[in-house]
């Protein structure tokens, strides 16, 4: 059995958790086992997870937002009770916080950051290593283990019309030693790690007051905005927008880089994007070598023209 931990926001499952369910479905076709899901909360989720191939959904009652230490403890207990062959969860901020704790508490091995699974002589999980410069194939020495799934590495679409059974798992939730004081969230935008389209800009923008055209392009495409390290460091853009080696690593479907030269440290965070479009006036910019599509031109002319053309295309 493959047990998948589903994160949710107000009982709406997170996209990255739905991807983990689909990853579990791929795994179940090459290795034995039904897919089951588990989440924390007192109500049913807004989606019946049967449409994601789940046979049975367990929930653990908890009244409030649990701390990561409580979640790690209670999920370890659930694993002890249900004995899944695989336990899967998103490589999200919570997933990264708890996966290693659960590995220790449950005694299972851990492969974190999987982007694919293949059947060779044994089941192997593919992950990106060396900051996107290579792939490695990892396997468990024992029979099964814990796997975290990188957001955007598999579809989040449902594939079935089945309904799953819901049941409550009675487990005691321990006290938390961590207190959440507040969450400061950027409203209304898809978080960068989950975004499928990202519009990113760098030093070529010359001044923070020029970002209007970037925001406009992002709005037209329904994209999340990002930036390179230098412009975050000088405070032109907020730090949470910084993608690259020391910032956030992303793998959207489309990454549009505007006025970013493509230093190796930047590429390390974005080189797993499926399609890269580079707009830069320097024909020698290293980013063109990593790009799928390129426009060599002055961004102050190209971007407004592009916005206008997209607006026209959308109005047709």
């Amino acid at each position, binding site marked *: 059995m493959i047990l998948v931990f589903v994160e949710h926001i107000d009982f709406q499952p997170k996209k990255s958790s739905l991807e983990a369910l689909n990853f579990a479905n791929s795994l179940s076709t090459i290795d034995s086992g039904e897919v089951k899901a588990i989440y924390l909360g007192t109500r049913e989720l807004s989606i019946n997870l049967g449409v994601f191939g789940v046979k049975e959904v367990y929930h653990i009652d908890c009244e409030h937002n649990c701390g*990561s230490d409580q979640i790690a403890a209670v999920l370890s207990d659930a694993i002890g009770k249900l004995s899944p062959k695989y336990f899967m969860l998103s490589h999200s*901020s*919570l997933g*990264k*916080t*708890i*996966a*290693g*704790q659960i*590995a*220790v*508490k449950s005694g*299972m*091995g*851990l*492969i*974190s*950051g999987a982007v694919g699974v293949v059947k060779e002589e044994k089941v192997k999980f593919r992950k*990106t290593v*060396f*900051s996107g*410069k*290579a*792939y*490695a*194939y*990892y396997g*468990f*020495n024992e029979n099964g283990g814990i796997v975290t799934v990188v957001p955007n590495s598999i579809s989040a679409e449902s594939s079935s019309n089945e309904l799953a059974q819901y049941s409550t798992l009675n487990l005691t939730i321990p006290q938390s*030693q*961590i*207190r959440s*004081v*507040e*969450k*400061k*969230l*950027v409203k209304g*935008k*898809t*978080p960068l*790690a*989950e975004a499928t389209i990202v519009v990113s800009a760098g030093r070529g923008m010359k001044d923070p007051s020029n970002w209007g055209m970037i925001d406009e392009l992002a709005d037209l*495409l329904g994209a999340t905005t990002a930036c390179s390290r230098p412009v975050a460091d000088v405070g032109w853009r907020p*730090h*949470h927008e910084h993608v690259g080696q020391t910032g*956030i690593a992303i793998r959207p*479907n*489309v990454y549009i880089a505007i006025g970013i030269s493509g230093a*190796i440290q930047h590429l390390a965070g974005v080189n797993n994007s499926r*399609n890269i479009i580079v707009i830069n006036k320097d024909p020698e910019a290293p980013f063109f*070598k990593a*790009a799928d*599509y*390129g426009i*060599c031109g002055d961004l102050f002319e*190209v971007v407004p023209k592009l916005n206008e*053309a*997209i607006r026209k*295309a959308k109005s047709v």
Partner: protein
Amino acid sequence: MNLLVCISKTPDTTSKISFDATGTRLIEEGVQFIMNPYDEWYALVRALELKEKFGGQVHVVHVGTSNSEMIMRKALAIGADAAFRVDKEPLDSMDTANQLAAFAKTKNYDIVFLGKETIDHNGSEMGAMLAALLNLPFISYANHLELDGTKATLDVEIEGGIEVLEVNVPFVISAAKGMAEQRIPNMKGIMDAKKKPLEVIEAIPSIQKVGISRFEQPPVKTSVRMIDPSNIDELVTVLKEDLKII
């Protein structure tokens, strides 16, 4: 205040990564190895800042062979008081965590620091494993840490923003950018480092849970399709027809 910083050795970001013909071994010739940047720039420097403010000791610990002594000397040159190397090429991340935990248990640390991930395996596994082995709370991806007595207030990176958390010492923390500013060792630091203790610790027995069967280079990008800036409609067609995002 006794602080421990766990450091790892990784290839430099700019190193060319290649593998032998069987795809099982990284070709190390020509690869520059460094202290993992998150461990050095953020975890170690914030630990040193706390020591400078509250007094105490900063220790660094590493699991690896004598090939790693260079990064340990660097940590001492930046300001750590003592370095400890568990003498073992680790089998996997759980092995490393077991070795680090066995060492940490022999001392009495208030905070155990490490970087948010290593830039080679990119797993973000170590902090969580170590915290569970030490039975301590774990705070991951923190980019700000303030200490008031025994109470720490931290900003951590979550999807779409920041969460502010409070926790009492002792705890384990993984550090992200923003936690501190990189420090370059000066000549005095480098000289002093030669006199500081670098102790070698015997490894504990451990079993391997996870293994890498092979590596693979990503496919080389076919050459970029250049679009003339005067023909912006061609890009719009790409966005619409090929990428289907309009």
